[in-house]
C-alpha cells in the first residue's frame, strides 16, 4: 500500500455531559496518520463515549474533532469515512458475509464488478476467502470478528475505530487476533484508535496508549514509557501486575521502605510517594553485598502458588506491606525455591524502581 489516505486525528478539549454528569472532562489528543493508539481505562471512564464522539454517533457538549485540517465536529457519521468495529461486531444478521462486506461499497454506489473484486480482496486479507456466501449466524466468534474487520477496511476509510473488538473471544484466539491486527495495521498503514480495558492488549498492539480515568486522559505514552514511567499511582496500578506501597522521601533520588533505602532512576515528584513493585521485576538473591545499581528488600515468604509458567509467592516486607514475587517454574529453579515462612532477600534494578506520586 503506497498511497494511503489515512488522516491524523486531533481532539481539542472535548467535554460530554449527560444531564449533570460529566462523562468527559476536557479530553485533548493528537494522533498522527498511521498511528495505532489505544485508549485504556477502567469501566465507566468514558472510553466508549470518546470513541462515539470521534465516530460522530454522539455530539460533544464542547470541544472540536479534526481529521487532518478539517473540523468534523458536526459531520454525521456517514460523511466521516471511518471504519468502525463495534464491541459485538454489529454485523447485519440478514445479510451474508459478502453482502455485509459489500454494504459500505453499495452505500457509495460502487459499480458491481468493482464491489466483487474488492470484497474478494478484503476476504483474502482477513483469511476468509471462500466464506462469502455463509450466513453470519454460522460463523464462529473469531470469524465474525474478521468479517467485521473486513467490512471496516474494504472501503479504504480515513480512520479505523475499534471498541473492545476482542473482548468476546477466548484467550488463545484473542492473542492470535492481536497479532493479526498488528500485522494488518502495518500492512495498511491505517490510523487506528482502539478501545480496551485490557492493559496487556493495549501494550501489545499500540504505538501509544492513552490511559483514561473518570473522563480524563491521565497519561499518554508509548507502552514502554507507560510501563516504566507511570505519572501517578493510578497508572502504575493499572498497568502491569504491581503492588503499591507507601514510601518515605529521603533524598532527591532515594526513598525509604521499612529499613531499606532504595535508589531511583529519576528525580522524585513532589508530594506523597509510593513505590510500584512489579512481581516480575523482583529477583531472589543471596546475602552477598548489593552491587551498584541494585536495590534490596527483605521479607518473609508467605503462600506459594503454582500458576503454570511461574510460581507466585507472597512476601511480607519488614514494614508490614504484603507484595508478590514471580519465580519461573522451570526445574533449574526447583532447588532455589524458598520455603514458606523463611526469610529471603530480593533485588530490584534501579531502573525498575518505579516511584510515583500519590493522587488524592
Amino acid at each position, binding site marked *: 500500500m503506497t498511497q494511503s489516505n489515512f488522516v491524523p486525528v486531533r481532539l481539542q478539549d472535548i467535554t460530554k455531559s449527560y444531564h449533570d454528569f460529566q462523562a468527559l472532562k476536557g479530553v485533548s489528543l493528537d494522533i498522527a496518520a498511521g498511528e495505532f493508539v489505544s485508549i485504556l481505562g477502567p469501566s465507566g471512564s468514558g472510553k466508549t463515549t470518546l470513541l462515539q464522539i470521534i465516530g460522530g*454517533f454522539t455530539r460533544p457538549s464542547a470541544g472540536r474533532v479534526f481529521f487532518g485540517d478539517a473540523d468534523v465536529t458536526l459531520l454525521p457519521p*456517514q460523511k466521516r469515512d471511518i471504519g468502525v468495529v*463495534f*464491541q459485538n461486531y*454489529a*454485523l447485519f444478521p*440478514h445479510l451474508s458475509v459478502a453482502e455485509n462486506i459489500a*454494504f459500505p461499497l453499495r*452505500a457509495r454506489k460502487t459499480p458491481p464488478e468493482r464491489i466483487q473484486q474488492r470484497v474478494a480482496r478484503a476476504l483474502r486479507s482477513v483469511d476468509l476467502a471462500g466464506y462469502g456466501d455463509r450466513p453470519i449466524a454460522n460463523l464462529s466468534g473469531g470469524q465474525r470478528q474478521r468479517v467485521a474487520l473486513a*467490512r471496516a477496511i474494504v472501503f479504504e476509510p480515513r480512520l479505523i475505530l475499534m471498541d473492545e473488538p476482542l473482548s468476546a473471544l477466548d484467550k488463545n484466539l484473542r492473542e492470535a487476533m492481536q497479532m493479526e491486527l498488528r500485522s494488518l495495521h502495518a500492512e495498511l498503514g491505517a490510523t487506528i484508535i482502539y478501545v480496551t480495558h485490557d492493559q496487556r492488549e493495549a501494550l501489545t498492539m499500540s504505538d501509544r496508549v492513552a490511559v483514561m480515568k473518570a473522563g480524563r486522559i491521565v497519561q499518554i505514552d508509548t507502552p514502554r514509557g507507560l510501563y516504566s514511567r507511570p505519572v501517578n499511582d493510578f497508572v502504575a496500578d493499572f498497568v502491569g501486575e504491581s503492588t503499591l506501597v507507601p514510601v518515605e522521601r529521603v533524598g532527591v533520588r532515594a526513598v525509604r521502605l521499612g529499613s531499606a533505602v532504595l535508589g531511583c532512576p529519576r528525580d522524585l515528584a513532589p508530594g506523597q510517594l509510593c513505590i510500584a513493585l512489579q512481581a516480575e521485576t523482583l529477583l531472589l538473591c543471596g546475602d552477598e553485598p548489593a552491587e551498584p545499581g541494585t536495590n534490596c528488600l527483605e521479607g518473609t515468604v508467605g503462600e506459594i502458588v503454582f500458576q503454570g509458567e511461574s510460581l507466585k509467592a507472597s512476601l511480607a516486607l519488614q514494614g508490614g506491606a504484603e507484595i508478590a514475587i514471580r519465580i519461573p517454574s522451570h526445574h533449574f529453579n526447583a532447588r532455589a525455591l524458598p520455603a514458606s515462612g523463611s526469610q529471603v532477600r530480593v533485588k530490584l534494578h534501579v531502573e525498575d524502581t518505579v516511584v510515583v506520586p500519590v493522587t488524592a
Partner: protein
Amino acid sequence: MTDLPMEDAITRAERAEQRGYLLLFLPALLLVGLFLGLPLGLLAFQSLREGDAFSLVHYARIFEEPIYWRTYADTLRVSLWVTLLAIALGFPLAYAAAIASRGWSTLILALVMLPFWTSVLVRTYAWLVVLQRKGIVNSTLIALGIIEQPLSLSHNYTAVLIGMVHVMVPFMVFPLYAAISKIPAELLQAGHSLGGGAFHVFRRVLLPLALPGLFAGSVLVFILCLGFYLTPELLGGGKTIMVSSLVQRNVELYLQFGAASAVAMMLLMIVMLIFWGVDRILPVEKIVGMR
C-alpha cells in the same frame, strides 16, 4: 453401552416430562376446541344443509350472484388499503417509540393505546360528527379558504377507510414496536458509519430486520379488517358492504342460516387460500424465525 435398564429409565423419565407439558397445554386446547373448533364444525355443517338434506346450493348461490362476489372483492380491497395505510401511519410511530428515550417512548405508546379506552361504537360516531358535511374538518378547511364546497367525507368509502385505520393503527404499532426495539442500536450506527444515508440504512437494515413485526402486524390488521362490521355499516352509508354485513343480512332479514354460514365459510377459505399463497412467496418461518 448395552445398559438397557438405564436407557429405559431415561425414556420413561422423558415420557413423564412430555406428559407434564401436555397437561400445561390442555386448558388452552380445550378452550380452542370447545369455543372455536366446535362452532366452526357446526358452521361448516350448517352451510352444507338445505332443509333436511345435504346440498351445495348455498355455495352455488355465492358463485352465481354477482353481489356476493363484489362484496368479497370489496372486503378484501378495503382490508388491503387499511393495512397499507396502517403501515404508513404505524411505522413512523413505532420507530419513534423504539428509538426515543424512555419517557417519550412511554408517552407515544400510551397515546397509541388511548383509543382502546373508548368503545369502537363511540369512536365511530365521533368520526361521523367530525367528518360530516358541516363537521369540524369541512368547516375548518372552508374557513381557511382551502376549499369552497364541503368535501363529502362521510357515508362513503373514504369515511370507512378513515374509521377503520383509526381502529387498526395500534394493532400495527405494537408488533412493529416490539420488532424495531429489538434491533440493536449498533446495527443502525454501523449502517451509518459505513456510509449509508438515512434511506439506505432504512431500506437495507431497518426494514429487513423489522419485517417479522411488519408481517405480524399486517396479518393481524388484515384479518381483523375482514371481519369488520360496525364501522363500515355506520360510516359507509350502506354503500360499502362488507362480508360481515352480508352474513348479518342473511340471518336477520331472511333467516337464512345456511346461506349465512356458507358466506362465512367462504370467507374463511379465501383467507386460508391467501395465506397459503403468501406463504409460498414469502417463507413465513424464515422471516419470523430469522433471528
